[in-house]
């Protein structure tokens, strides 16, 4: 049963269905991890996605070796893809292949940094809320309110006021991504805090820090893994959206900036290669991240291991 159902745990922002994340709330031991890997290995979609993500990471890290930084203006303006310029050139004669390669670095950096911050805040808020029931009401109200607002216009306002830079984008995207993480992790954490072993731990120690760190966080780790991937892929889309509106870092190449410059120069619709290649890059990154989280969820589910 390699269904795509666990997608309910992903960007759609839905209540998690019973089929998706109901599996073991208990932490995965090393053996369970190995079992997950054995099932995962047999899922072609998952393996291909993982391979694609690793490829993008390699491209990002090796960017200086693969292409020189596209800064200087060239005389070959708006040339369609050819052997000399595989992805064509832009309206200032720069190599689009180089822009996409360097854009990979920026997009992955923003995705990873923003999602790490969002996950840290989101998880902490979620487990604190689940553990201290009085705070939970307050926290879930804030999360619900934030999730019901149009976040992109708010990100735009703040990014414009602070001034566009990579740090701004990471901060803004992280600041509005954590409620989604909290929502996902909270639902899992709420079931964990009521399990007998947590009650037992309460008898052993009075330190909530110990119980949260030792028992609750490990138990919600699978959900965190899924939401890392989901948050990162959402961050890619948000960052691209900001850059597309002209709020990207003007000193670094990003996929959104290539699209923004194409739009600004009016070449967006005529020079198809300017939009096609960064678009494919965004699609590949987000799609493989989403498929990877689905495959991981499937592999983690013990009902699928029995095969």
């Amino acid at each position: 049963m390699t269904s795509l159902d666990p997608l309910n745990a992903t960007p759609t922002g839905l209540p998690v269905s019973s089929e998706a994340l109901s599996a073991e709330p208990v932490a995965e031991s090393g053996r369970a991890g190995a079992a997950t890997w054995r099932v995962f290995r047999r899922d072609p979609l998952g393996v291909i996605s993982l391979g694609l993500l690793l490829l993008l990471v390699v491209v990002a890290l090796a960017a200086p070796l693969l292409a020189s930084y596209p800064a200087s203006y060239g005389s070959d303006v708006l040339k369609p893809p050819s052997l000399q310029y595989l992805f064509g050139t832009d309206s200032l004669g720069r190599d689009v292949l180089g822009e996409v390669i360097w854009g990979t670095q920026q997009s992955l950096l923003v995705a990873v940094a923003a999602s790490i911050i969002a996950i840290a805040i989101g998880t902490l808020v979620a487990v604190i809320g689940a553990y201290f029931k009085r705070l939970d009401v307050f926290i879930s109200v804030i999360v619900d309110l934030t999730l019901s607002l149009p976040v992109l216009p708010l990100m735009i306002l703040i990014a414009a006021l602070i001034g566009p830079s990579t740090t701004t984008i990471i901060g803004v995207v992280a600041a509005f991504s954590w409620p989604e993480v909290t929502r996902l992790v909270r639902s899992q954490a709420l079931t964990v805090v009521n399990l007998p072993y947590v009650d037992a731990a309460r008898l052993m120690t009075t330190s909530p820090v110990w119980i949260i760190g030792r028992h609750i966080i490990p138990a919600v780790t699978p959900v965190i893994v899924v939401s890392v991937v989901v948050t990162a892929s959402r961050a890619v889309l948000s960052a691209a959206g900001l850059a597309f509106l002209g709020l990207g870092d003007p000193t670094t190449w990003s996929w959104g900036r290539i699209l923004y410059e194409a739009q600004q120069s009016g070449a967006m619709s005529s020079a198809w290669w300017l939009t096609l290649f960064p678009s494919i890059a965004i699609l590949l990154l987000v799609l493989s991240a989403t498929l990877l989280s689905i495959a991981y969820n499937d592999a983690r589910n013990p009902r699928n291991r029995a095969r």
Partner: protein
Amino acid sequence: MSRLFFVLPRLGRGVFTIWFAVTVTFLLLRLLPGDPALAVASPNMTEEARAALLTQYGLDQPLIVQYGLYMWQMLQGNFGVSFTQSVPVMDVLLQRLPWTLLLTFTALVITVLVGIPLGVLAASRRGKVLDKIIQVIGVTGQSIFVPSIGVLLLFVFGLSLKWLPIGGAYDTDAYGMDWYASVARHLVLPAVSLMLIQLGSYVLTMRSTLIEALGEDYVTLAKANGLPYRRILWKHALRNALLPTTTLIGLQLGFLVGGAVLTETVFAYPGIGRGIYEAVTQLDFPVLQGAFLLLAITVVVANMLTDIVYGFLDPRVKTS
């Protein structure tokens, strides 16, 4: 009476959400680095005009007074004065709002009209090839960057095939019925772009809730009674599976509006989103602030209306 008890908490919740949006904006503007005065008055204004605006918003007063004044101004719909056009932000935005409403509403309707049948189809063919294809389309749609699909559609149907206009919202030289027809033609590509990125959520939710509903006892009973499968699927199971899908509309509204901002930019559609794009280029902060607040209010009100209308349709709400 019971209806009043149903409507009032939802109204209260809506008002509370709007208050939250305004407060967050106020706090962000004051706490972040940068001059909060920039959000209401341009440095290029004359000294007196600028000073008058700053006093109106109490930017020379203590924070708590500022907050009160800010709330008061927002209540009156006073979002400041646009830097570039020197007219109240509200006037600029209200001109654009109908286009954004038209675009997002159309997109929402066609998403639901296409998404629900696709979800039902996938659920009834669970595990078959058609189910897999529909799921892949859904997941892929969710992973697409809106401007990408927008430009693709624009390139194929606008520039190459020349079936549909490539930008704007209407023909300037059309009148009467022709004008409405031109509005419809300009609406197709942006609305379809928005539909494609939203479709996945609806299809996948519909599919999984319907599969769950098909496993319920009442479905087994209906089967045992010899009811035809189609009737069970469309009449019994679907009705119950529609509930989470309706909640999804509310959850997705904020996301839909974000997508609309990007789509309007691609198609030069004269809504609030395109206004945001232009305001970013000119660093027109009052317009950006007003746009966020107006969109937030729109989303909250739309959500509230969906909720209330839905409540009247659900028999359980009436009896309780």
